[in-house]
């Protein structure tokens, strides 16, 4: 089974701190994604990466950066955490393929981040 692992389930950080959220996948997927999930807003794409060292902005990249130094690992960085970044963060990975189900994204369990 595909496994997408996020390093923490719960995090509490202070305003202004630099925060790292780590995600690792074990299926050699090219694509990795970071979403945030807020009530009533669904899943919004922050950044995605389609290859090592490659990244593309999603819908809400402001206040975030990402790093993909290795294919299996995709990190989300909050340079200076703010209270409006309190949210559930979900990492996902997928293959680049147009065959049925191969484009399916597999999700991690999520990291609930609280910024105080």
């Amino acid at each position, binding site marked *: 089974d595909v496994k*997408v692992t996020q390093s923490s389930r719960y995090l509490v950080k202070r305003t202004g701190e630099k925060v790292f959220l780590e995600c690792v996948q074990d299926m050699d997927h090219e*694509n990795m*994604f970071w*979403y945030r999930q807020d009530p*009533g*807003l*669904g*899943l*919004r*794409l922050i950044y*995605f990466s*389609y290859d090592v060292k490659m990244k*593309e902005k*999603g*819908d809400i990249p402001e206040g975030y950066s990402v790093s993909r130094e290795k294919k299996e690992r995709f990190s989300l960085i909050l340079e200076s955490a703010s209270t409006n970044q309190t949210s559930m963060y*979900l990492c*996902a990975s*997928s*293959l*680049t*393929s*147009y065959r*049925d*189900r191969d*484009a*399916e*994204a*597999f*999700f*991690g*369990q*999520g990291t609930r981040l609280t910024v105080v």
Partner: protein
Amino acid sequence: GESVGLHLPTLSVQEGDNSIINCAYSNSASDYFIWYKQESGKGPQFIIDIRSNMDKRQGQRVTVLLNKTVKHLSLQIAATQPGDSAVYFCAETRGAGNMLTFGGGTRLMVKP
């Protein structure tokens, strides 16, 4: 901008009834659609998918219908069970990177 959205935020059904969850999308270039189910405390999980060259696809107790004319997607769940209670998201994927765009989600509540 382009978006994928859902009509109803909450759907309440009786156990054993059929459920229909709807989704509208606005990007006619989208070529692949997925329904995800998210249970409390878990990440979204794949339910069923459909390509833009199809109108209907059936799985076990679930059916996805795609109407490209009106850019509408629906998920039908037959004989809804308490274990079906969750939030359901439709998502579209397009482009070489298979970037997924999600709708806002519908909460399905199954009454015993």
